[in-house]
């Protein structure tokens, strides 16, 4: 990925508008429709160390939630039960 090649030395070590940056990053991570989000993201990650760290941790958390949370199998009779009750009520 391009942003990984950017050296840490080039990034600002502190961000003077953390709230605004983090809000933007989180909206992008959550898939909200942000105009020019990819450009904005690239620029932030290349320029700002706190944003870079925050972004990758937040992304990792979303990824593990999405992929690793245990899922329950739907009880096989549930759908049939629901359909049956609705039929009876008609």
């Amino acid at each position, binding site marked *: 990925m391009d942003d990984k090649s950017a050296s840490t030395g080039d990034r600002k070590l502190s961000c003077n508008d953390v709230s605004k940056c983090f809000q933007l990053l989180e909206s992008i991570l959550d898939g909200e429709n942000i105009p020019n989000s990819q450009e904005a993201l690239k620029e932030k990650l290349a320029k700002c160390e706190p944003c870079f760290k925050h972004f990758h941790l937040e992304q990792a958390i979303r990824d593990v939630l999405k992929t690793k*949370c245990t899922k329950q199998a739907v009880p096989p009779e549930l759908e049939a039960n629901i359909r049956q009750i609705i039929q009876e009520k008609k």
Partner: protein
Amino acid sequence: MSEVQRKKYTEQEKNNIFGQEFMPNIDSMYNFAYRLTFDEDDAKDLVQDTYLKAFRFINSFEQGTNAKAWLFRILKNSFINDYRKKSKQPAKIDYQEVETYYNSDDVDYTSTTDLRVDAVKDMLGDEISNALNSLAVDFRTVIILCDLEGFTYEEMAKILDIPIGTVRSRLHRARNLLKDQLRSYASTMGYQTDDEE
């Protein structure tokens, strides 16, 4: 909702909507219900009640809108109205009230990065699930809706009947609480946190 008579679907249309738009969501619905109740029988009852209500009020569903979001809203309301009341759990703080009190659309975005990305990536499914399950229900719910089910902020606002600003701030808090949980798992797994450096 106004009592104006909405257009009525024919029996055939109702069956089509129910079968093609509602039923395919049963997997997500059951998992949401289970993550709210932590009990198989309660989750089954909750999903069943939700589908029965959905069928009864099918005329207020607008075809072409997001059926899954509509169903989730019914499920969440049923949970609050029916299940939370009868559960024997001791009363918990109502976070919505707390948030309103503190006018919480202002969120503290102070960076807490002493949790490592590689530690998070190495977590086991059970650890992630347990961390999520340990959150109070209002915080757990926003993470389920956003990260597990992929709803947008706007859809979440409708499902939960709260403003988008509150969705954002609650999500941010929920993820911070989750990070605290994950951080304690990480330290028991022997991962160094930045604190220890």
